[in-house]
């Protein structure tokens, strides 16, 4: 007909659902594949009449649902069990039941959102919002009270006159030729559009500011915050002493903390005994920690010869008779408690590391005051090593 326009399809409309089912059967039976039916509501049995294959949409749902489940699980596992392990409510780091609600939510969320998105993109070809059927007389009638069928020009069997005759035989109300709309282009950066963007930005940021800074502090939105509950560091009328927080029960010990019973005693009558054997690993751990924490004052070999000598009440040598006579527990006590100007190292060095340092100091002391037996022993070992 009109040759400078590009034909999209030929459409026919009918009055009843039975007619459209019949038409769909005939059209699919005649071998057309690029055709579509538009009805004001879903007509039962249309899938069979159009010979539609089961939709592939379900796969999107399945894959995205499984993706949601695994993302949620991996994310929580990584966060709370591996990267920054947190004990919550006394549960294990990997507390599966607690993860299930979030896993469930994310599964459902990803599955549904992606199903809708896939549907819009696959069936309505989303970013393209200019479907040739839009704004046609045909679309107006089939979205109201008529039932329509369209045979598209891209169909292999398409031939204008044949299709028109074919459709006419079905006794339609009318037949319509639908063309692709002329391609229109709009410049994006029109002043009007920019103004609109600015307006939207203003409304969104204003709205956000208002709701987060003002609205939230107005009744009734404050109800969530003003609860009759105890808030840490705040007062409360519930208890006679007026404090909201309770003192821990006497004897309470923090998690992972073992109290030191001789804390603060200058000349303890009793000290702990060393729980570690002077093994190679233990001594090398002690050396590492000694070099870091003690050597700046006492020197690498505990001679009291560090560069602080003379600038500070001299850190003493640890090879004095006094220091050699200290029990292991006393050395530990000095590190834990401090002594006069030497501060306590309790908070810097862990319990086990302090014991390792004790073992290392013993090594240094024995090296400086080696007995003859020690020397023969050492030479024997050196000789053995050479022989080996």
């Amino acid at each position, binding site marked *: 007909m009109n040759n400078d326009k590009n034909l999209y399809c030929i459409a026919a409309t009918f009055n009843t*659902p*039975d007619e459209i*089912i019949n038409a769909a059967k005939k059209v699919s039976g005649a071998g057309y594949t690029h055709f579509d039916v538009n009805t004001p509501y879903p007509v*039962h*049995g249309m899938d069979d009449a159009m010979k539609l294959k*089961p939709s592939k949409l*379900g796969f999107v749902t399945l894959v995205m649902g499984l993706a949601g489940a695994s993302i949620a699980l991996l994310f929580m596992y990584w966060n709370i069990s591996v990267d920054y392990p947190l004990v919550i*409510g*006394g*549960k294990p780091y990997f507390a599966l*039941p*607690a993860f*299930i*609600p979030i896993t469930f939510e994310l599964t459902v969320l990803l599955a549904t959102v992606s199903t809708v998105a896939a549907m819009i993109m696959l069936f309505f070809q989303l970013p393209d919002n200019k479907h040739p059927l839009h704004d046609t007389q045909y679309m107006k009638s089939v979205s109201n009270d008529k039932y329509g069928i369209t045979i598209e020009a891209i169909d292999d069997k398409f031939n204008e006159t044949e299709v028109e005759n074919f459709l006419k035989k079905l006794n339609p109300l009318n037949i319509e030729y639908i063309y692709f709309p002329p391609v229109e282009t709009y410049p994006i950066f029109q002043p009007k559009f920019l103004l609109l963007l600015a307006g939207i930005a203003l409304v969104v940021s204003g709205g956000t500011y208002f709701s987060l800074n003002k609205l939230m502090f107005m009744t009734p939105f404050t109800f969530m915050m003003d609860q009759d509950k105890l808030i840490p560091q705040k007062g409360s009328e519930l208890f006679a002493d007026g404090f909201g927080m309770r003192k821990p029960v006497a004897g309470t010990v923090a998690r992972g903390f073992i109290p030191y019973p001789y804390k603060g005693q200058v000349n303890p009558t009793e000290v702990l005994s060393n729980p570690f054997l002077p093994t190679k690993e233990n001594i090398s751990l002690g050396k590492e920690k000694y070099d870091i924490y003690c050597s700046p004052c006492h020197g690498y070999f505990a001679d009291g010869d560090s560069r602080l000598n003379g600038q500070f009440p001299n850190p003493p040598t640890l090879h004095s008779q006094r220091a050699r006579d200290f029990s292991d527990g006393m050395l530990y006590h000095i590190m834990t408690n401090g002594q006069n100007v030497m501060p306590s190292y309790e908070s810097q060095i862990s319990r086990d590391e302090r014991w390792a340092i004790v073992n290392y100091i013993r090594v240094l002391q024995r090296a400086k005051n080696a007995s003859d037996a020690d020397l023969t022993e050492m030479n024997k070992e050196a000789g053995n090593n050479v022989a080996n």
Partner: protein
Amino acid sequence: MSQTDFHYQKKELPASLTKFALILLSIGVVLSLIAFFVDRERALFGYLVTYMMIVSIAIGSLFMVALEYIAGADWSTPIRRIPEFFSKLLPFLFILVIPLLIFNHDLFHWAHEEAVAEDKILQGKAPYLNITFFVIRTFVFLGLWTLFYWMMIKNSRKQDTTKDQNLTTKNIRLSAIFIPVFAISITFTAIDFMMSLEPHWFSTIYGVYFFSGLVVAALAAITLAVIMLKERGYFSPWMNDDHLFSLGALIFAFVNFWAYIAFSQYLLIWYADLPEESFWYLTRWNGSWAYISILLIIVQFLVPYFALLTQPSKKNPKRLKFISVWLLLAHFVDLFWLIMPNMNSMKDGYTFSWIDLVFPIAGVGFIILIFIMSYKKDNLLPIGDPKLKRGMDFHL
């Protein structure tokens, strides 16, 4: 669309079915009696499991009938007689419950006066948990169920001859009243007959848990009966894929609902970890109970979930038949898991005994017999129902 012209002609059930049911029932009853004399406690607990199974199917079926009326569904109208037949089990519960009432002492710890006297908690619960009130409750609930059964089924049957549309309206009203009665009565039934077996324990979602399992069981029984009849041509020529799909979708939905409720109950108790609540799950984690607990998740959720996930599988009669049988078993395992660990001798783990098998045998025979009985008196299709035609022509 296709207008089915259909003239209903009643077709009897095969006599071999009656024979089959009678054989099952008599074998079951004889073995049950022997079991009762061999180990009374175990037999009573086993009997309770089967009793609750029959309660599930009976009251669940009446619930499905009421649901159809109240939702105005028409796809299920042509198969409504199946749940109606199953709900004929309700009046028989009056007889079936009697052993449980007589031997309450063997089942319920709270029925021991000397135990209550030493137990502060049981004393607090005594105003509710005492034999007199228990018996009253039981008969009131059974009475209500039977009353609603009788009124609704009478209306439905009368319609076959009178074709009076007002009877549908009447039944819609009755259903509206029945649903809250049903909700409350099954909650208390679950509490009375199952939760109170461990009288120190409590869970506020218990009634809903029982409900979710009960609907699955009733739907499975209905679907199984529908498909067996369909395979033998009782529903020809009108029954189509979409009827099956609707049944399958309902089963699928309630399988998920069961999992949702079961997990909710577990999550809260696990999270709070209060000793007075968590011990109930710990008992079910003792010894071999742990396997049954895990089995329950697989049997009642994972398998039916994946078996019914796709659309074609919900229309596949073979698949649906298999899953129906499977879910009936699953609900049985569920009830078994709820009830049996409360037996003193089984607290440390499940030990097999032939006694566990005899009651289900008798139960299956009994259910089939009652089905046949009501089938004989009634039409398979509610031929007077105004929605029947629409239901037969149903398409999704």
